[in-house]
């Protein structure tokens, strides 16, 4: 059977997030009628119609920012040249994305950007994957009339040191920050805030001197609050924030959609490759668990797959005191089969068993338990969930009838009050934590029940309404007392209980 390698379909950047409105609006863009939900930006509506308005600071996983001035358009009956990213559509609106006026403005804006950007495109790590390069092409920039006097990237022509120059920060093991290439679009700063929720980055300085900064002056990425999720690297339209793997290996030429093998969030990724050389992992924006986000483990920590410690040949030994001996697969299987059958002949059918893994696929797990039940001939199969979530199986089956969580992760976007108990999502389930924190910043309330003051209790723009620092081992006492208060104070949902639950 064919191995599926999906092309990155529907992967176009729509510029601004989708509107959730159900009211539809029809407008005309460059002579095409397009119908979109109310609240959609003119930029996104254009993209829906297949028209890509030039842009630098906009990207569809961040709120519109309106700073780069490249996406300006003309709208009949309106004065000036509004930014299409921050202008919502209106019924009957008539938009021109390519009038001579806006084309001239865009060219002038690009000229200013490029006047303070090194022109080392051929040797730049973003060559071929650079939005600044693409936009210079899209607006037809042919000439830069400004003299390179006060740039951020080269020494002055008179040989003096350049006070504007800030050296490259390669303190993070996985990516670099090169201020010389920064166009101050703030996409990284906004990704850190809106997507990750860490607020590690900011813009320091003003006007021409403004640059991205990780924390206070003197901090680099490693000493800052950065958690290395990589959202900033993904958001960067240039080589300013760049994976070290891309710098080393070049631009990837193909991608495969797959699923992260770390925690239970199950983030979807595009594994981007050259041949069979993995270049980088990019969270897949249509992944329904992660919605285009990732953590440091999923995005960056895949180096173990090619680590020299990996054992690639089967090995056997008579006794555990002996050294290992490398053998062929066939010899390993026959040695093992003989030993297991000998044990069963001597000690009975029940004397062997197996353990399946929560790290392996469903299909692999199914085969292991099938082998134990059908080939070993007993039920001596267990799994590492024994030591983690077996009580979830028992508890939820007893109360609800099935052993599983009740929601999807999108559900958190509709929650008003959250109890987090016995979990540390910012460390253990970071992508879910980012989605939760986003909802908390929108006003949802948080109750943390944990012996330890986990980061969710208080972090940037997040403060739990209640932290109950219970003594380890008293969960049941705390939860039962919450229930007691709810019942004795008449706060229980009697209607739900009477119609949906056993009432007796």
């Amino acid at each position, binding site marked *: 059977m064919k191995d599926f390698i999906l092309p990155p379909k529907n992967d176009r950047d729509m510029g601004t997030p989708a509107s959730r409105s159900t009211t539809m609006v029809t407008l005309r863009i460059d002579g095409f009628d397009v119908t979109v939900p109310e609240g959609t930006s003119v930029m996104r509506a254009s993209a829906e119609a297949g028209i890509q308005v030039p842009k630098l600071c906009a990207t569809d996983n961040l709120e519109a920012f309106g700073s780069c001035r490249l996406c300006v358009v003309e709208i009949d009956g309106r004065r000036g040249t509004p930014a299409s990213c921050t202008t919502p559509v209106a019924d009957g609106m008539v938009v021109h994305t390519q009038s001579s006026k806006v084309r001239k403005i865009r060219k002038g804006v690009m000229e200013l950007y490029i006047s303070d950007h090194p022109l080392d495109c051929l040797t730049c790590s973003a060559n071929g994957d650079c939005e600044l390069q693409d936009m210079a092409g899209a607006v037809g920039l042919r000439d830069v009339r400004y003299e390179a006097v006060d740039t951020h990237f080269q020494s002055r022509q008179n040989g003096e040191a350049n006070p504007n120059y800030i050296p490259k920060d390669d303190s993070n093991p996985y990516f670099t920050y090169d201020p010389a290439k920064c166009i101050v679009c703030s996409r990284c700063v906004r990704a850190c805030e809106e997507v990750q929720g860490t607020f590690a980055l900011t813009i320091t300085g003003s006007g021409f001197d403004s640059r991205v900064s990780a924390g206070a002056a003197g901090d680099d990425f*490693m000493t800052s609050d950065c958690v290395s999720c990589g959202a900033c690297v993904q958001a960067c339209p240039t080589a300013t924030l760049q994976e070290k793997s891309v710098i080393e290996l070049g631009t990837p030429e193909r991608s495969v959609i797959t*699923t992260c093998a*770390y925690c*239970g969030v199950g983030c979807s990724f595009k594994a981007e490759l050259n041949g069979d050389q993995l270049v980088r992992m990019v969270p897949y924006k249509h992944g*329904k668990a992660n919605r285009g986000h990732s953590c440091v483990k999923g995005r960056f*920590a895949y180096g173990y*797959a090619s*680590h020299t410690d990996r*054992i*690639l040949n*089967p*090995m056997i030994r008579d006794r555990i005191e002996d050294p290992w001996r490398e053998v062929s*697969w066939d010899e390993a299987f026959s040695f*093992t089969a003989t030993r297991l059958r000998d044990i069963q002949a001597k000690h009975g059918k029940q004397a062997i068993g*197996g353990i399946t*893994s*929560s*790290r392996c*696929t*469903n*299909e692999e*797990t199914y*085969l292991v338990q099938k082998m134990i039940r*059908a080939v070993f001939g007993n*039920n001596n199969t267990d799994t*590492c*969930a*024994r030591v983690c*979530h*077996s009580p979830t199986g*028992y*508890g939820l*089956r007893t*109360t*609800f*009838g099935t*052993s599983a*969580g*009740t*929601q999807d992760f999108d*559900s958190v*976007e*509709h929650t*008003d009050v*959250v109890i987090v108990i016995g979990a540390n999502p910012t460390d*253990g389930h970071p992508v879910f934590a980012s989605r939760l924190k986003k909802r908390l910043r929108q006003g949802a*309330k948080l109750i943390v029940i944990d*012996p*330890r003051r986990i980061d969710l209790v208080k972090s940037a723009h997040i403060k739990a309404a209640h932290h109950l620092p*219970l*003594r*380890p*081992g008293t*969960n*049941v006492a705390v*939860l039962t*007392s*919450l229930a007691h208060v*709810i019942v004795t104070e008449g706060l229980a949902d009697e209607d739900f209980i009477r119609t*949906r639950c056993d009432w007796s």
Partner: protein
Amino acid sequence: MLTGVPASDLRAAARLFATGGNGAIYYGLGVTEHSQGSTTVMAIANLAMMTGNLGRPGVGVNPLRGQNNVQGACDMGSFPHELPGYRHVSDDATRAVFEQLWGVTIDAEPGLRIPNMLDAAVEGTFKGLYIQGEDILQSDPDTKHVAAGLAAMDCVIVQDLFLNETANYAHVFLPGSTFLEKDGTFTNAERRINRVRRVMAPRNGLADWEVTLKLANAMGANWAYTHPAQIMDEIAATTPSFAGVSYELLEEKGSVQWPCNAAAPEGTPIMHVDGFVRGRGRFITTEYVATEERTGPRFPLLLTTGRILSQYNVGAQTRRTENVVWHPEDVLEIHPHDAEVRGVKQDDWVRLASRAGETSLRAHLTDRVSPGVVYTTFHHPVTQANVITTDHSDWATNCPEYKVTAVQVGLSNGPSEWQRDYADHAAQSRRILPAAE
């Protein structure tokens, strides 16, 4: 005060949850890994039911699964008492489905759980164990007992990427493949079945499912799967909650949440919408019963454990990446008051001792933990945090009580005797003869 939480705070939290709108509960292993783990899960279910917080977006009971495929491994019949789809092995009709397809007779009695296997091994009645992708020596409680059980067996087979700690007690090592090297599916915490796609060829030559297949065939089976899609077809054919799942559907939809069958052909994002799976929701009385693990004069502090962002579980993967720059060793978090009375200063080596054993690590003074509570992670084998944990476990499921251990902390000179002995043993055990011999 039993819980250490002021009653006024409990009341305020209860009122907020009951009156604050859509209420959702998210929980992790700090709920399950207790002697009352199952009771706690039921107390959470009670709380959600009594506040009407089930069956719509924004509410619910959400276990945060620790690993990529905890949900899937449980769904797939990994437990000794359950066939795929959580159906008891004593159920004749379920057994008949598999017996007919597989052409064998399936034992109607539940098999052994991991702790029982190890106990039986120490007693001499359990002799062979196939372990796929797990390091029980490091991740299961009471390391010394695990080691004794493994050492007593005649055939321990470890299938893994690396010579893990368990492999020190193995007779056969079958190299494993990473998620980048094979096709399959993982089921995440929201019951979402996601495709894992082969990005590159298996470096060891065989995907993990092929290794199991060949071992089964060496023992006399006659399996002929040529792609994991065929295994999923068998799962769908035998398991009602997966009846509609196929690789074709996953290609079309991207992913799907079980149950996925004739009643829910596109899967089920939110469960219990029109009624509970069991009919009516069932409240369970959840009486608090204190763990037998008690503090006392010899062990006055309570140890609890957790994870850190940059590392993952026993660290087999993340320790072999540059993530180690953030967390090169496990440390013991201790409140400055508890540290001061013991003469412990920041970064001092301390001895951490429980009734089960002792280990050494460095101290980190912080008020993140309350006085009386200490905390550590378990990402580095040298720490051997599970030398400390006890063999107490959940009354219903044997899930170990990792989250509560009575301990004492004192200054130390460095690694404990056990840590040194263990390091020697591990080095000895990892010898590989050169290919020429």
